[in-house]
Structures are given as structure tokens and as C-alpha cells.
């Protein structure tokens, strides 16, 4: 997966931008879940999420901040908990991917069995097939620049939040971006509905 968007709206670029905050544990549960959901489909990003703190970060940090973040993260991960959590997480990811693949295969078979030989649409059903694929592509391409703008703004705010973690107003600005991103992703998801 490169720059394409998950339904969650997370891209590889936005994951890179949010990585310091994810590692520092300052992301809220929803955001952390969205990053992990993206990583479940993207091996490059999965390795970043699980990489040690010494890996290069998207936002340059001074030595004190790095040290504080390292202490924080290590404190959160005792050896037993870390091993268990990581293996559980990978287990869950694998299960989720298998389940999604199975559902996709089932849906595909179901769709093929319902389609008439001539390829005509079933009367009264929503349009699927090639026209809907065009509609989804249209929605995704229309939203691509907006996701990029959201990514850039989020990166800027994440850097500011790392510099001032207790600043409630900065978090409100960031929360607003998250809401916009969720709304946009939901609108794309709702195109075939």
C-alpha cells in the first residue's frame, strides 16, 4: 500500500507524520487504532510502528524529548506485556485480514451468482459493477488533495503538540482535523450505499 487511502483516511504519509505521537502515547485510542488498522495492510508501516525509537522520526526531536519519550514508552512496555501484546496484536491482525479476505470472496461469489448472464443490473438494486467503480474512483480522486491538506495540517499540529503536550487548544485544533478526516472518509465509504 503506498499513498492510497484506507477507509480510515490514513495514508503512509499521515502515518509517518503521526508516528512520534503514536510512539509517545499521546494519540487517543481512535487515532492509534486507525494507524494500526492501516499497518495491518501495509507491511512497511507495520515495521515502522513496531520499530525501536532509534529509527528516524518524521519530526526532528531534541535529545531531552527523545529521552523522555523513550522512558515513557519503555515504562509502558514491560517485557512480558510487550511480547504478549505484540503477538496478540499480530494474531488479531492476521485474523482480521483472513476474515476480510473470506468475506470478500463470499461477496464476490454471491455477486456473481446473482448477476444475469447478460450482465444486466437487477431492477431496484443500487448500481454496482463498472459504473459504481467509476463513482468510487471519482470520489477518491476528488478527495485526494483534501486528505493531503489534512495530512499536512496534522503534521504541523503534531509537531506543535509534541513541543507543548499540555496545550488543550492545540489538541482541539487536532481533534477538529481528525473529525474532518473521519467525515471525508465516511462520505467516500457511503458512495456505494
Amino acid at each position, binding site marked *: 500500500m503506498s499513498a492510497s487511502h484506507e477507509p480510515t483516511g490514513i495514508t503512509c504519509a499521515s502515518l509517518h507524520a503521526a508516528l512520534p505521537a503514536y510512539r509517545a502515547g499521546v494519540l487517543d485510542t481512535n487515532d492509534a487504532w486507525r494507524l494500526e488498522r492501516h499497518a495491518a495492510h501495509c507491511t512497511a508501516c507495520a515495521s515502522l510502528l513496531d520499530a525501536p525509537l532509534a529509527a528516524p522520526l518524521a519530526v526532528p526531536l531534541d535529545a531531552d524529548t527523545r529521552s523522555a519519550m523513550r522512558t515513557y514508552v519503555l515504562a509502558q512496555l514491560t517485557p512480558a506485556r510487550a511480547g504478549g501484546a505484540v503477538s496478540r496484536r499480530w494474531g488479531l491482525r492476521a485474523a482480521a485480514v483472513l476474515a476480510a479476505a473470506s468475506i470478500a470472496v463470499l461477496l464476490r461469489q454471491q455477486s456473481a451468482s446473482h*448477476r444475469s448472464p*447478460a*450482465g*444486466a*443490473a437487477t*431492477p*431496484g*438494486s*443500487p*448500481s*454496482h*459493477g*463498472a*459504473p459504481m*467503480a*467509476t*463513482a468510487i474512483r*471519482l*470520489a477518491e480522486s*476528488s*478527495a485526494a*488533495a*483534501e486528505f493531503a*491538506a*489534512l495530512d499536512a*495540517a496534522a503534521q*504541523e*499540529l503534531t509537531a*506543535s503538540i509534541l513541543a507543548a503536550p499540555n496545550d488543550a*487548544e*492545540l489538541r482541539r*485544533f487536532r481533534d*477538529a*482535523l481528525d*473529525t*474532518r478526516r473521519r*467525515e*471525508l472518509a465516511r*462520505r*467516500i465509504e*457511503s*458512495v456505494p450505499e
Partner: protein
Amino acid sequence: MTRRLVAVLPALALAAAAAASRGSAQPVVRGYAVAPDVTVRLYIPAGTLRIEAWERDSIHFAGTLGANAAVFGGGARTHVKLGVEARSHTDSTIPAAQVVVQVPRRARLWVKMIDGDLAVSGTTVELEAYTVRGRVDVHDVAGSTTVESIDAPVTLTDAIGDVRVRGSRAPVTLERVRAALSVSTVSGGVTLRASGVDGRIETVGGTIDVGGVRAGGVLELQSHSGTIVLRLDPRGVPALDLSSRRGTTPQPRLRGDARYGRIAARSFRGDVRVELTTRRQRSR
């Protein structure tokens, strides 16, 4: 006579086949007797859709269908669903139609398009409209009005009640709106003119250009990098709470008076400006 028919019939058949293969417009007309508060769902993926509310207890659906388009749907007195779908799954063209629909004024209306121009007028209870691209023009509506788009400019005029607009890249323009308002975009600008509202307007990079707040109302404006412009009547400046982390705010600070309402404007990086203007300038 028979010879003539023999000569003409193949020509007619050929002409009909040619017209069909060109996907010439097919007319469509449907009518339903319904309850005055009928729930209506309309789905026209592309083309144009004009919806007008009328005083009759019926729905009239008329227009022309483009190539690869067919009408589906039906309903009962309380619920009607009508739409346009593709005849063939293999043709990637989004099915299009040019349709005019009349619905009862008190209908609850749900409309969805993908890439087309939508115009709605006269609904008084509930309107929900969704589109990806094209244009949305809503006027003379009351009750609950929701418009969501990704890349369609939205214009909403003469609206009262609750208004909710979710845009992204395209501009949102509101005129003569008396409503509890909730508007958000990503990079699209938001313009509010000659209106009395309270509520919230948010953008990420778009400019917010606002002509005032309802007396006694509260209006919250927020942007990440977009400029916020307040065009206010000097005879009744609302109480102002303006801030920008990295942009500029008016100096000296204007305080205003809460009797005329309250406006809180916050930007992370955009400027916040106040322009004291005449009523005529504000309504322009």
C-alpha cells in the same frame, strides 16, 4: 403499397437500431399519490435533478434518461424510492438522467447524486442531500436541511431551521439564512451573508467570511490555516473573542457588546480580520 412498406420497414428498423445504439434520450414519467408527509428517496447518479415542493399530495417524476440508464423504484403512500441505475454492469459510464421531481411540501426527502447538478426548493420538514461532484443549489427551505458533498459547490439561500453542511474542496455560500448552523469544509471557503445564525463554522484551509451573528446568538469559527473575516455593522458589534496562534488578529482589540451576540474566532495559522461595513456592503 406492399413494396413501399417492404422498402421502408428495414430503413425504420435500422434508424431505430442506430438511435438505440447512440443511446438517445428516453423519456420517463412516473406519478404517485402519497401522504403529505411521505418519505422520499431519490438516487440520480449523474445529470441534473431539480426538486420542487408543491402543495399537492403526490409525486411527479419526469425527465429523460441517458445511455445505460434505467429507472428503478416504486413505493406506497408513505414511502417512495425512485432512482436511476445502470442497464449494464460492464459499461463504466455513470448512468445519467435529467429529471424534475415535484414532492409534497412536507415530504421528508433524501437525495443522492454522484456527479451532477442538484437544485432543491420549497421543502419544509427535512432534506438530506449528498453528492460527490457537480453543484448543489438549495433555496427557500425550512426544517432540517443537510447537504454533504466532496467537490460540489454548495449554495444555500433563504433557509430557516437547522442547517448542516459538510463540504470539502468546493466553496459553501449561505445567504439569508436564519438557522442553527453547522458548516465544515477542508479547503473550501465558507461565505455567510445577510444571515442571522448561531452555530459553528470550521475549515482547515478555507477562508471563512462572515457577515454577522444573530442578536443574542453565539457563532464559533475555527480554521487551521484559512483567514477568518468578520464583516460587522459598526452600530452593533457583537462580543468578540478572536485569536490566532501564528496569524494576526485585529489591533487594538475590539470588544463589542454581547447584546448583539457573540463571535469566537480561532485560527492556528490564519489571520483573523474585522471589517466594519455598511449594511449594503455586507449584503453584497
